[in-house]
C-alpha cells in the first residue's frame, strides 16, 4: 500500500509509564461500549475520544507509557462533564469517576495559564473559607443591586456579557443557622447534622431553611456543626485533590464531633463527594477509618426522608412538575426512586416524566464556564425535552442544576419555575398547617 505512514503501533514505550494512573478500575473495563450512547459528549460529537470508553483507554495508555499527557489528552479528559452516566450504564461496575478524577489530579486544572491561576486561587483561597465566600457574595449582590451592573454591562465585550448573564442573582438574605439546635416537631426520630455548603446558604438560603423545617416536621433534631466547610467537590473535579483532602478532614472532624445519626446533604454534588471521602482518604493512615465511618453516615435529604418515611400531615400543593435527576444523585449516588416517591406523596402534585431526565443539563460544577459551547448545547436539548413534556415547573435537587435550568428557561424557554425537592415538601407541610388553622 502506497501510503507512507507513521506507524503508531511501533511507538510502544515512547513515553514514561505513569504508575499513579495505573488504577485497578482500568482493568475492570472490558471496552464493551455500552457506555457510549449514555455519554452526553459522545452523543453530541460522536467522537470516541469524547466517550467514557475512549477516555478510560487514554488513561490506560498513559499509565502504560503509550501516550503523553499533552494538551490534546487534557482536552479529552476535561470535556467530560463527570456526570457519571457511564457508571449507571456499565455492566462491570467500572467507577469511571475515580479514573477521571485521578487523571485530572495528574493533569492539574484546565484552561489557559491565567484561567488556571484564577481557578487555583478560587479553589485554595476562597472556597475553603466561608467568610471569604460570603464577602464575594456580598460584593456580587452590591454589583447587581446598586445599578453598577446595568451601568457597565453595555461596555463589556460580548464574552464577558454572556458570562455576566450566567451570574446567579444573589438574594437579599443568606442562610446563617449559627450553633442552635433546630428541635424535632412531634416524636423525635433522629438527630441529624446538615451541611450548609458553600453556595447553598448564599444563593439558595431559602432551600436550606426549607430543608431544616421539613426535617423538623419529620421528627429530626437538626444541627449545623461549627467549622464545617465546602465539601471540596469542585476541587476534586478540577484536579486539586490536595486542597480537597484538607477540606474533607475538616468536615470529618466537624461532623463526627457532633455525635449525630446521619449527615444530611441537600446538594447532590456535595452528597456524592462526601459519600466518597472514604475513598479520597483511603491512603491516609490518620483519617482512612474515620473517613469511611463519616461517609457511611452521609445521606441525601430526599434519600433520607424517603427511607424513614414522611410523617403526616402533608397538605395539598396543586402543581404539575417534571423531575430532573441531578447526575450526582442518579448516577453518583444511585438515588432515583426516592425523590419521585416523595413527590408522589404530596397530594395535588402531578409528576410528568421527561425524556432523558437523567441526562446532564450541562451545568456540571464550573463546566458551564469552562466549556460554554458544549454546556449550552446540552442545556438547549434539556429545555427542548422539558418543553415537549409540558410541565410548567421542574424539580432538581441540586444548586448547579437549578441555576442552569433557570438560565435555560430565560435564554431558550419555556417559561419555567425551578424548585428544589425540599421547597415542595416544605410547601406541603406549610399548607397542612394552614388548613389546621382554618
Amino acid at each position, binding site marked *: *500500500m*502506497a*501510503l*507512507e*505512514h*507513521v*506507524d*503508531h*503501533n511501533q*511507538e*510502544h514505550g515512547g513515553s514514561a509509564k505513569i504508575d499513579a494512573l495505573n488504577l485497578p478500575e482500568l*482493568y*475492570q*473495563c*472490558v*471496552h*464493551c*461500549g*455500552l*457506555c*457510549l*450512547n*449514555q455519554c452526553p459528549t459522545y452523543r453530541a460529537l*460522536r*467522537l*470516541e*475520544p469524547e*466517550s467514557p*470508553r*475512549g477516555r478510560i*483507554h*487514554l488513561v490506560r*495508555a498513559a499509565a502504560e507509557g*503509550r*501516550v*503523553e499527557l*499533552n494538551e*490534546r*489528552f487534557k482536552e*479529552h479528559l476535561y470535556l467530560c462533564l463527570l456526570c457519571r452516566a457511564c457508571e449507571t*450504564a*456499565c*455492566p*462491570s*461496575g*467500572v467507577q469511571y469517576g475515580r479514573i477521571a478524577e485521578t487523571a485530572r489530579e495528574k493533569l492539574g486544572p484546565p484552561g489557559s495559564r491565567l484561567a488556571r491561576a484564577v481557578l487555583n486561587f478560587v479553589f485554595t483561597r476562597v472556597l475553603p473559607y466561608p467568610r471569604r465566600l460570603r464577602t464575594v457574595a456580598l460584593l456580587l449582590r452590591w454589583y447587581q443591586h446598586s445599578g453598577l451592573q446595568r451601568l457597565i454591562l453595555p461596555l463589556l465585550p460580548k464574552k464577558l456579557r454572556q458570562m455576566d448573564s450566567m451570574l446567579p442573582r444573589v438574594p437579599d438574605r443568606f442562610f446563617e443557622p449559627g450553633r442552635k439546635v433546630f428541635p424535632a416537631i412531634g416524636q423525635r426520630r433522629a438527630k441529624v447534622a446538615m451541611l450548609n455548603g458553600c453556595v447553598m446558604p448564599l444563593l439558595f438560603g431559602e432551600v436550606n431553611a426549607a430543608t431544616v423545617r421539613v426535617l423538623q416536621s419529620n421528627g429530626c433534631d437538626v444541627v449545623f456543626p461549627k467549622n464545617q466547610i465546602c465539601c471540596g467537590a469542585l476541587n476534586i473535579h478540577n484536579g486539586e485533590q490536595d486542597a480537597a483532602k484538607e477540606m474533607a478532614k475538616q468536615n470529618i472532624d466537624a461532623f463526627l464531633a457532633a455525635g449525630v445519626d446521619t449527615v444530611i446533604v441537600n446538594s447532590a454534588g456535595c452528597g456524592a463527594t462526601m459519600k466518597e471521602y472514604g475513598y479520597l482518604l483511603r491512603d491516609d493512615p490518620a483519617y482512612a477509618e474515620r473517613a469511611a465511618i463519616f461517609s457511611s453516615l452521609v445521606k441525601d435529604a430526599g434519600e433520607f426522608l424517603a427511607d424513614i418515611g414522611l410523617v403526616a400531615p402533608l397538605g395539598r400543593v396543586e402543581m404539575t412538575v417534571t423531575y430532573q435527576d441531578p447526575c450526582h444523585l442518579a448516577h453518583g449516588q444511585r438515588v432515583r426512586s426516592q425523590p419521585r416517591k416523595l413527590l408522589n406523596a404530596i397530594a395535588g402534585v402531578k409528576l410528568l416524566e421527561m425524556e432523558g431526565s437523567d441526562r446532564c443539563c450541562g451545568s456540571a460544577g464550573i463546566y458551564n464556564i469552562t466549556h460554554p459551547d458544549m454546556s449550552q448545547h446540552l442545556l438547549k436539548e434539556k429545555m427542548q425535552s422539558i418543553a415537549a413534556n409540558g410541565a410548567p415547573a421542574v424539580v432538581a435537587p441540586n444548586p448547579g442544576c437549578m441555576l442552569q435550568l433557570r438560565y435555560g428557561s430565560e435564554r431558550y424557554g419555556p417559561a419555567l419555575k425551578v424548585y428544589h425537592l425540599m421547597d415542595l415538601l416544605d410547601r406541603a407541610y406549610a399548607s397542612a398547617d394552614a388548613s389546621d388553622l382554618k
Partner: protein
Amino acid sequence: MSRNALINELRAIVGEHYVLIEKEDVIVYEQDGSIFQVMPEIVVLPANVEQVSAVIKAAKRANVPIVPRGSGTGLAGGAVPAEGGIVLSLARLDRILKIDLPNRIAIVEPGVINQDVTKAVAEDGFFYAPDPSSQAACSIGGNVANNSGGPHTLAYGVTTNHVLGLEVVLDDGQIIWLGGEVPDTPGYDLCGIFVGSEGTVGIVTKIVVRLMKTRESVRTLLAVFDQMDHATQTVVDITGAGIIPAALEMMDRTTIEAVERGAPVGLPRDAEAVLIVEVEGVREQTEKAVEVARGICQRNGAREARVARDESERQLLWKGRKGAFGAMGALAPNYYVQDGVVPRSQLPEIMRRIAEISKQYNLRIANVFHAGDGNLHPNILFDMRTPGELDRVVEAGAATLRACIELGGSITGEHGIGIEKKAYIGLLFNEADLEAMSRVRKVFDPDGRFNPAKLFPTPVSCGEVRRQPANIPAGLWL
C-alpha cells in the same frame, strides 16, 4: 499520494474536526469489544453519503485500506484495522430518515443505535426485532455488517431477515441501491451479500428495515437450577414439547457472579444455572405456554421457576442477561468469547465438554448463551498481563470450537468472523467454498482494501499480511 495530501483531501471533504490523526485521538479506535488491538493511521467521520463516497474515492486514489466502524461494540475484531489505514466511522450518519408504519418499514442511517429504532416506534406498537445484547449501544450498520442476532433470534430470525434494502457506496465511490422498500426484488439478492459481509464489499449508508407489531402479551419465566445438566435437559425438553419461545437464554454460575458483582439484578448467586424463557403472542396462548414451560422446568428439578410479575421485573432480568458480557470485567480484566453453535440436543454434552476444557486449561469459563438455538457463548476469563496466558486462552477457545464441530455444530452464530475466527473458517468451508466466496468479494473489492485481513483465512488479493501487530495472538493468524 502522500500521507499529507490524503489528510488534506479528507479534511476538505469532512472538515478538520472530523479527520483524526493525533495519537491521542486515533489510539481510542485501536479496539472494539474484542481482545484485538491495531491502531489506525487516520480516523474519518463523514456526515452523509456524499462525503462517504468522496472519502472512498480519495482512499482508492491513495490505495489505502478502509475499515468501517459503527459503535465499536463487536466481539470478533471486525472494526479493528488489521492492516492500519483509514477507519471510517459511520457514527455521524445517525438519522432515522423515514418511518412508514402502514408498510411496516423504517429507513435509517448506519450510525443509528439499534435500540433507538424500537424507541422511535414503540408508542405506535411496533419494534425492530434483532436485539443483540449490546443493543443500547450498537449501530444498525454494525448489525448489518455482522448479520447480528440476539436473544429473540429464536423467534424472529437474524438481521438479514429484517433488512429489505440498502444504499451502498461501492469501491469506486458510486452510490447504488440494493433491494428496496418492498420484500421481493427480482434478480440476484445483492442485499444478502452485503448483510454479514463485515465491511469487505462496500460501505452501507442507508438501511430499509422491517418493523414488527408488538405482541399482545409477553410472559417471562426465570428458572433456577442446582445442576447444569438439569438446565440443559430442560432446554431440550421445552423445544421438544413444541413450544417455540421468543427467547430461551441460559446463564451459568460464573456469569451470575459477574452480573451480581458488576451491576446486580438479584439473581441467585448459589445457583449452577438459570434459564430465562420468554413467550409472546396472544394472551391465552402465552399463559398456557408459560405454564407448560414451568412444568417442564419443575420436572427437570428446577428449585424455583417464577414468572416475572410486571414489566419492570422483566426488564431487570433482561438487564442482567444483556449486561452479562460487559460484566465479565467484574471478574477478570479480559475475556475471550466464543460463538459456537451445536444442535440443541447436544447442549448437555457440550456443556460437559466445556467444563472439562476449563479444567484442562486451568481457565475460568463463564457461559451465557442463546440456549434455544444452541448458540453458545463461552467467555474465557483471563488477564492479558500474565505472560503466556493468552496463548492458553486461544488454545482453549479452539478446543471449544472443535468440540462444537464434533457435535455437528458450527463456529459462529452471530458475532461474525472478524479477525478472531479467520483461523477457524477453514473448519467449516472447504477450499472450493472459500474460493467462490472470495471471487464474490473480488467483484466488489478488486483492490482488497475494504476491511482487509478479515473474514477469509488468507488475504484474498492484497498480498500478504504485512505485520503481526503485538496484540493479536499469534495463533489466530494463518
